[in-house]
């Protein structure tokens, strides 16, 4: 779950990380009102969950009310990579003297959080990793010990030379780790972490991704979701305990299990078709889940046929069959459904589905080919 810059900054600021106090506006009028209290030079920053805001013109400086109104008007409503800007952050500008990078991620190899720092801040860290890998310094953190003072100090000394700045940076690294752990984040990043012309240090931009699995421990963080920027079907799927990703094809897929769902998309592509989505109905599927899944798939006008692929383990085939029949009756599905069911309670499922309009197939390959055939003729 991605947080907006202003949300990430709020969290970091309450943890004690130095952030210039900004406010969010949804209209140019609000932006001006905020500016009146702030004065001086400010930066007007679009709040969207995509990268490249600066290049897209979504970040501007302003030094008076007129400029603030102009810039805010220009940015609000702007389209950045398909997302309409609905909020801008107004914050005092920092006279940047040095830009560095501090980030924390989960590393699969060491099975622990890893802190990365670089004196080359202000640009995408993946760029730095590619072009100047010697400018990235990493320390794996023992999840029981957390960042030790000596580790924070050593990392900080890669960013600054001045002893006072090293000390403050070490503190920021320690606090950022606390933010990471306290929220079960999967990424916590300050880029750039800047020294201004007086030597003060500031988190000028901030990014936090929360571990979706960690939300069970922090239910209050659910309120930070930015539903605006999500695809409504993906939201609906998540709320129903389904996993859904929208794609561009015309063959809807409904599968139990993430691996099998990917393999189903892949096999559709392999035989020359185009999958319309990834959809995992998960284990322990109830008829209600199947109904929701069917609804979500058929919401997409591109979908010409649905391929159901169920291999029962926890999922019982009869539950799925009942769900599909119910969905048919309730929702009134207009597109053909190719259906492959095997595994637990397979026989019962077959009985339930006999004498319906559904098209049974014996294997994934057969199902994919059948679905493609139907899609091509509709």
């Amino acid at each position, binding site marked *: 779950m991605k947080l907006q810059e202003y949300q990430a900054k709020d969290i970091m600021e309450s943890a004690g990380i130095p952030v210039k106090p900004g406010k969010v506006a949804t209209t140019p009028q609000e932006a001006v009102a905020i500016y009146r209290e702030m004065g001086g030079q400010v930066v007007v920053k679009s709040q969207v969950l995509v990268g490249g805001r600066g290049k897209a013109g979504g970040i501007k400086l302003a030094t008076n009310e007129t400029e603030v109104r102009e810039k805010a008007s220009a940015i609000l409503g702007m389209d950045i990579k398909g997302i309409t800007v609905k909020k801008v952050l107004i914050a005092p500008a920092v006279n940047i003297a040095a830009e560095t990078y501090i980030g924390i991620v*989960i590393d699969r190899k060491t099975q622990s*959080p890893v802190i990365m720092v670089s004196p080359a801040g202000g640009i995408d860290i993946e760029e730095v990793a590619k072009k100047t890998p010697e400018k990235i310094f990493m320390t794996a953190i023992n999840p029981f010990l957390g960042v030790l003072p000596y580790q924070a100090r050593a990392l900080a000394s890669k960013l600054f030379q001045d002893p006072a700045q090293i000390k403050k940076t070490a503190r920021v690294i320690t606090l950022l780790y606390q933010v990471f752990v306290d929220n079960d984040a999967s990424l916590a990043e300050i880029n750039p972490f800047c020294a201004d012309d007086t030597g003060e240090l500031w988190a000028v931009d901030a990014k936090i991704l929360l571990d979706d699995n960690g939300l069970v421990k922090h239910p209050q963080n659910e309120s930070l979701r930015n539903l605006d920027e999500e695809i409504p079907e993906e939201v609906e799927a998540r709320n129903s305990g389904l996993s859904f*990703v929208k*794609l561009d094809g015309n063959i809807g897929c409904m599968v139990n299990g993430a691996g*099998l769902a*990917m393999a189903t998309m*892949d096999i559709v592509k392999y035989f020359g078709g185009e999958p319309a989505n990834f959809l995992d109905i998960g284990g322990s599927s109830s008829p209600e889940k199947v109904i929701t899944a069917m609804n979500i798939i058929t919401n997409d006008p591109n979908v010409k046929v649905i391929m159901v692929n169920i291999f029962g383990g*926890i999922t019982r085939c009869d539950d799925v069959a009942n769900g599909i029949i119910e969905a048919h009756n309730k929702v009134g599905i207009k597109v053909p459904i190719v259906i492959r069911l095997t595994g637990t309670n397979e026989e019962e499922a077959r009985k339930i589905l006999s004498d319906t309009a559904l098209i049974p197939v014996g294997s*994934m*390959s057969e199902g994919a080919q059948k679905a493609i055939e139907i899609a091509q003729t509709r």
Partner: protein
Amino acid sequence: MAILIDDKTKLVVQGITGRDGSFHTGQMVEYGTNVVAGVTPGKGGQEVHGVPVFDTVEEAVKVTGANTSVIYVPAGFAADAIYEAADAGVELIICISEGVPTLDMARVTYYLKNKGVRLIGPNSPGVTSPGYCKVGIMPGHIFRKGNVGIVSRSGTLTYEVVNAITEAGMGQSTCLGIGGDQIIGSNFIDILKLFNDDPQTEAVALIGEIGGTAEEETAKYIEAHFNKPVVGFIAGRTAPPGKRMGHAGAIISGGSGTAADKIKAFEAVGIPVADIPVQIADLIKQKLSK
């Protein structure tokens, strides 16, 4: 022989009175697994499918000598259940629970490493050694005892492969899912070491998916150390970058973790990669007939 579980397995089911725990206990008992105990705090003294329920794993182990645990508790309680099993002296823990917080797992895996306890999962469909027993949620009827080891990051996709192998007239030594999360107790290499030493296993099917670089590292390990034929499959060739494909670990990020990279890594060390799951059976047959 088989690996991990066999006729010496004495299983305790953590979360046995829940919907999944109770259903699959019945399935495991029916398959012939020696389920000696269940645990649900506060429900000690009950029975589920004839299996006695205890309040703590410690008691269950003391009374029944359980040496393997399977965990069906909700994600938020999974870490505690794993610690409890490890502290009670269980040697092998198989965690089915899905959605366990990643940082919980970072702590758990560090703890277990120092304790010498083996963990499979979380988010694993379990382990099946046909002819001996099954632990987890895999459908028992698709298996047949044989010489193919199967290790996978997936659940249902694995059943698909098992089914294909069985229908092709072959069978499995042990089949297991290592779990689809970012941090898991045992990785491909840990399991391959066991298959290498298992005389029953003559070939291995390795089922990977997008996200991370486990397949790439495994390919290097196989080239250097593994002595038996391996065939592979990678799910997610059509997955878009930056999107989590169901499994917490199945995500292409920063251009790394693509199916193409993984397939390349496998093929570079001579591991044939199936285009569709059912082909795995053919590839194994070819390898074994050489």
